[in-house]
């Protein structure tokens, strides 16, 4: 007769009291810590510790041209910022630069991706053409555009502009044009990134949804608006987030192309911070500017991630 459990079997000895967190779990934890600690130490050393130091420096007056004036300054640097027109200029430029280039990248990248999806062959060639700008060093791209493309008289862009009847211009010499030019440079280099990511996303969309829409007699535009776009939304959001982060900290290309000029026409915030620190040697104020940029970056990324989560 068998009812519940405890069928006859070999008698078991009195069991030892069992530890709640087993020995092997503790060993696993120790192993994990061993593997992770070097990275943690290095990360703290290279990112968090310097950050603290940055904030501390921003509270100091460190002017290497007038060393005798150095000392603790409290929030003096930040107060100064409020009344500094160059700061507000750089903030505005950062805003224009970042938003314009990100929007352009997404729109162009998406259009390209949609186009290329329709072309069954030749995708490899296009992929190679897309990868080349991305792997180049931004500083080289900046120099390149500055000399080979945007130089009045000799640059390719200038040549094309003259041929088309728009005449020759000081693409990097004229303050407004300079801003347009640097936006163009950044967009040129990074649109392929958006293109590749969106192309991959497009390629991974399930075809049956589109077939169903066709059967339901939706035309191309409706299919795009009501199916493609919503399905692509996560990928687009990610691209926007990533490109925004990069645009906020973009440095080398602008530095190479204009150095922030002419004057301060292309001096986005991080260039202003750089110039203040390493050209004018006012490290305290430069640190404060960098700290503000950091704060802005953190706020924007926080908002964007929130947005992403919310959707």
């Amino acid at each position, binding site marked *: 007769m068998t009812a519940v459990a405890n069928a006859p079997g070999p008698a078991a000895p009195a069991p030892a009291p069992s530890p709640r967190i087993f020995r092997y779990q503790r060993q696993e934890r120790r192993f994990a810590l061993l593997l992770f600690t070097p990275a943690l130490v290095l990360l703290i050393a290279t990112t968090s510790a310097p950050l603290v130091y940055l904030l501390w420096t921003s509270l100091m007056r460190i002017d290497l041209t007038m060393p005798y004036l150095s000392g603790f300054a409290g929030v003096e640097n930040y107060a100064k910022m409020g009344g500094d027109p160059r700061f507000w200029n750089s903030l505005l430029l950062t805003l224009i630069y970042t938003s314009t280039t990100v929007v352009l990248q997404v729109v162009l990248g998406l259009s390209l991706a949609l186009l290329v999806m329709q072309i069954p062959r030749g995708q490899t060639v296009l992929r190679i053409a897309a990868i080349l700008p991305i792997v180049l060093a931004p500083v080289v791209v900046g120099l390149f555009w500055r000399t080979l493309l945007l130089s009045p008289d000799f640059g390719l862009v200038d040549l094309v502009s003259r041929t088309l009847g728009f005449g020759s211009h000081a693409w990097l010499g004229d303050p407004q044009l300079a801003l347009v030019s640097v936006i163009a440079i950044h967009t040129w280099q990074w649109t392929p990134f958006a293109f590749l990511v969106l192309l*991959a996303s497009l390629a991974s969309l399930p075809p049956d949804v589109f077939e169903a829409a066709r059967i339901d007699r939706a035309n191309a535009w409706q299919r795009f608006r009501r199916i493609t776009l919503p399905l692509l939304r996560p990928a687009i959001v990610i691209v926007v987030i990533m490109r925004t982060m990069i645009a906020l900290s973009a440095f080398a290309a602008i530095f190479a192309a204009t150095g922030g000029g002419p004057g301060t026409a292309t001096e986005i915030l991080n260039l202003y911070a750089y110039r203040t620190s390493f050209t004018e040697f006012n490290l305290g104020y430069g640190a404060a500017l960098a700290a503000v940029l950091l704060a802005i970056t953190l706020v924007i990324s926080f908002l964007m991630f929130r947005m992403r989560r919310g959707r």
Partner: protein
Amino acid sequence: MKRAFARRFALAASAGMLLSIWGFPVLWALLTSFKTERDVLAYPPKILFEPSLAAYRDVLFGASSIVPNLVSSIILSLGATLLTLLVAVPAGYALARLGLPAKRTSGFYVLATQMLPPVGLIIPYYLVLQKVGALDTYVGLIVIYLTFSLPFAIWLLVSYFEDIPREMEEAALLDRAGRLRTLWYVILPQVRGGIAVTIVFVFLNAWNEFLFAVVLGGNRVRPVTVAMFNFISVEQTRWASLAAGAMVAMGPVMLLGLIAQKHIVKGLTVGAVKGGGRR
């Protein structure tokens, strides 16, 4: 029939036009690098010209040869890549698969460190390295390069580790492999692809780095990105040499890009999905 053809044509034409916008500038630079300085300044621009290696000779063997800079770049990039891998692979594994205490916070932390604008970091770096006397040293710069490569590498690797079925470790442990041998014999071989992608990205980013190199480097540590400015001065720009210099400086990464294009696209999309990435 005709509509389909017109459509095809329009598509191909637009694709071609766009290809030219992205492909042509690079081609133009390539062409320029084979011109003599005189030919470069000619107007209308010469499409057909007599190719000359003068620019390359100047760039490689001339007074402002960038060969020492190439060496500098190689040391920096290889060093950064190696160090990153050594640290990121175990860390990624611990984060992805092991019972790491405070795992979620650690994950967030790694993600957050990618958000820092480099300009915010060079000031403290400069001050600290100066105090320690590590300015213009390879060791100093390689460690600093970890700032951007380490978080990204960890994040990439975590996603690759997570793709491996959980039973792999269980089976290996039951087979008496122990945790370290499980990682080495069973898990790592399965993320070979992910490690390759990570190597490509880290190397690329290190090679192309400018800001850290120019501020924290000097005469000894001077990678090609900094050396590019050799060819530009107030008086005169040596166009052909600049183009040749750019070709040489970017040669390795362009080659890497061509060879590893599938890897790169994969890395971009993986990085995009998991929310990491730089540059």
